[in-house]
C-alpha cells in the first residue's frame, strides 16, 4: 500500500507540474501582458520598462521558475479589476461554491444510488422504466436550461424560492456560510437542485448498470443458494461491489461539480468561485483566471490522488499490481 501511494504521489506531482506549465505557456506566451497593461499614450521605452519590471525580458525557463516560485509562496498576483490579491478573492468565495457543491452531492448520492439499485434489481418493471425515462430526460437537459426552467417555475410562477444571490449569511469559524440561516438555505435550494439533478441521473445510471453486472455473478447466485436474506445480499454483496465504480466517479464528479458550478453560479448570481472565473474571463482579468486554473488543477490532482488511493483500498487487486 505504501509503495502504491508513493508511486501515485510522484505521478500527481508530475501531473501538477505539466498542467502548471500548460497554463503558464498558454496565458503568458500566447497573450502579451505588456500590451494589456499599458496605456495608449505609452512610449516604447515605457513598455520595455514594464516588461523588465514584470520579468518578461528573462529567458522563458527563468520566467516559469519565477511564476512557479511565486505560486508556491502563495503569491498569485493582484487582480486588475478588483485591485486586491487574487488569493484573497478566491478564498473569500470558495465557501459559497463548496456549500452548494456538497449539498448537491449529498442530494445526488442519497437519491441516485437507491433509485439505481432499485431499477437494476427490478429491471423491466414499470417503476424502473419510469425512473429510467426521467433519468434520460434529466441528463439530456443541459445544466443551464434546467436552471432557467427552475427559475421560471419556482421563482417566477410559484414565487416559493429566490432566484439569485446568497441571502443572509452567518459566520462559523470566521467563514460566512449561507446554510446557517433560513434565508440562506432558501437561496441555496435552487442552485443546489440545479447541480444535483445531473448527479442524480448519473448516479442512477451508474448504480443501475453496476447492479445489473453484479446481479448475475456467480458469488451472487452462491449467496442466494446459501439462503442469505435478500436485504443482506443487497447490503453485503451488491452495495459493496457497486461502490467501486461509484467512488471513482463520485470523486471525479466533486471536481465536475465545481466545474459546472461556473454555469449554475452565473445563472443564479451565486457569489462563488465559478462566477468569479466567468466574470474574470469577460473582463480579461488575467491574474484571477490564471490563479483559478492553477488552483483548480492542484485540486483535481489532489482529488485524483485521493480517488486512486480509495480505489486501491476498496479493491485489493489494484494495490497488488506491479
Amino acid at each position, binding site marked *: 500500500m505504501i509503495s502504491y501511494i508513493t508511486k501515485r504521489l510522484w505521478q500527481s506531482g508530475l*501531473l501538477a507540474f*505539466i*498542467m502548471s506549465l500548460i*497554463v503558464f505557456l*498558454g*496565458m503568458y506566451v*500566447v*497573450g502579451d501582458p505588456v500590451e494589456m497593461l499599458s496605456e495608449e499614450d505609452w512610449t516604447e521605452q515605457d513598455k520595455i520598462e514594464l516588461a523588465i519590471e514584470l520579468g518578461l525580458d528573462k529567458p522563458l525557463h527563468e520566467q516559469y521558475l519565477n511564476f512557479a516560485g511565486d505560486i508556491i509562496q502563495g503569491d498569485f498576483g493582484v487582480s486588475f479589476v478588483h485591485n486586491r490579491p487574487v488569493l484573497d478573492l478566491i478564498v473569500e468565495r470558495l465557501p459559497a461554491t463548496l456549500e452548494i457543491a456538497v449539498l448537491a452531492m449529498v442530494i445526488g448520492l442519497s437519491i441516485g444510488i437507491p433509485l439505481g439499485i432499485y431499477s437494476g434489481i427490478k*429491471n423491466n418493471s414499470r417503476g424502473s422504466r419510469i425512473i429510467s425515462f426521467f433519468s*434520460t*430526460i434529466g*441528463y*439530456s*437537459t*443541459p*445544466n*443551464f*436550461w434546467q436552471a*432557467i*426552467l427552475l*427559475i*421560471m417555475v419556482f421563482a*417566477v410562477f410559484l414565487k416559493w424560492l429566490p432566484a439569485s444571490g446568497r441571502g443572509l449569511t452567518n459566520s462559523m469559524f470566521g467563514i460566512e456560510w449561507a446554510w446557517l440561516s433560513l434565508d440562506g438555505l432558501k437561496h441555496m435550494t435552487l442552485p443546489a437542485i440545479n447541480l444535483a439533478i445531473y448527479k442524480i441521473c448519473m448516479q442512477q445510471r451508474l448504480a443501475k448498470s453496476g447492479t*445489473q*453486472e453484479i446481479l*448475475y455473478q456467480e458469488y451472487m447466485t452462491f449467496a442466494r443458494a446459501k439462503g442469505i436474506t435478500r436485504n443482506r445480499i443487497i447490503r453485503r454483496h451488491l452495495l459493496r461491489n457497486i461502490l467501486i465504480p461509484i467512488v471513482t466517479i463520485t470523486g*471525479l464528479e466533486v*471536481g*465536475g461539480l465545481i*466545474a*459546472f458550478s*461556473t*454555469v449554475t453560479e*452565473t445563472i443564479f448570481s451565486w457569489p462563488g468561485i465559478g462566477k468569479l*472565473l*466567468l466574470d474574470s*474571463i*469577460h473582463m480579461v482579468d488575467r491574474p484571477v*483566471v490564471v490563479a483559478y*486554473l492553477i488552483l*483548480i*488543477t492542484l485540486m*483535481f*490532482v489532489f482529488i*485524483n490522488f485521493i480517488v486512486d488511493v480509495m480505489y486501491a483500498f476498496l479493491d485489493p487487486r489494484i494495490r497488488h499490481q506491479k
Partner: protein
Amino acid sequence: MIDYKKKLDTLSLQIKSIFSGHPIAIAGLIGFIIFVLTALLAPWIAPQNPYDLMILDIMDGLLPPLSKLGNGNTAWLGTDALGRDILSAVMYGLRLSLFVAFVAVSIGTTIGVILGLLAATKGGWVESVIMRAVDLKVSFPGILLALMMLAIFGTGVDKIIYALIIGVWASKARLTRSSALQEMQKEYIDAARISGIPSWRIMMKFLLPNSIAPVLVMVPMALSGAIGAEATLSFLGVGVPITEPSLGLLIANGNDYLLSGKWWISIFPGIILVLLVLCINVVADRVREFNNPYLKHQDRQ
C-alpha cells in the same frame, strides 16, 4: 477485394436488429434525422434569413407567437427584440449547433483513433506519451478545459470547435488502443507481419477496420455531449459570436426577457435543444446496450 454490397447488407441487417422492437430508439432516430434535414435545408425552408439585419424591422420586435409581421407573414414562434423571426433563428441556430458538434466530433474522433492505433502498434515511449496525455485530459472536466482554452485564445466558431475537439479525442484514443491491442494478439496480424506487409498498412488495413467498432458506439454520445457543451459555452457568452447565434446563444438572448413574461424567445430554442440531445441520447443508449454483452446476456435470461 472487399465486397461492398455484402458489407452494406450486413450493416443494414445490424441497424435493423439494433432498432427493431425498440420504439423509443426508433422515434429518437427519426427525430434526429428530421433535425439534421431541417439544419441542412434551413436556408431554403426558413421563412427569413436571421443573419440579414437589413430585412429586420424593429417594429416587429418582441411579438408573441402567431403574430402577424409588418410584411404580412406570420411569426409562428414570435419574434425577438430586433424583430427577428424565432422560427428562422431556431433553424439557423440548429444548423450552427449541429455543424460545430459534427465537425468537432469527427475531427476529435479521427485524432483519437489515430493516436490510439499509434499507441497500440508503436509501443515504447510513443505509447507512454500518448497514454499519459490521455490520463491528463480525462482527469479534467471537459467544460473547464474548454473554458480554459476559450479564455486563452478568445471566442469564435473556430475556437469553440478546437475547444470541443480537446474534449473528444482522449476517450476515443484509450478505447481504440485497448481494442487494437486485443486485435493484435490474433494470428492473422502475425501472419500479415511475417509476410512482410509494412506496419502502417497493417494498421490501416487490418487494425483500423477491426478495432473501430467500440469507438463508433461512443460517437452518438460524444455528439450529444458536444452539442450540450457548445450550447453551455455559447450561453455563457464565451462560445459562438453574437452575429451567428447557436441554440445556446438564442437562449441567452431571450433569458433577459423571461422575467418580463416574454417567454417565447428562450423557450423555443430551449425545447429544440433538449429534444435534439434527447433524440441522440436514446439512440446512443440503445446502440450501447446492443453492444454490451452483459446486457445481452441478461435479455436471454
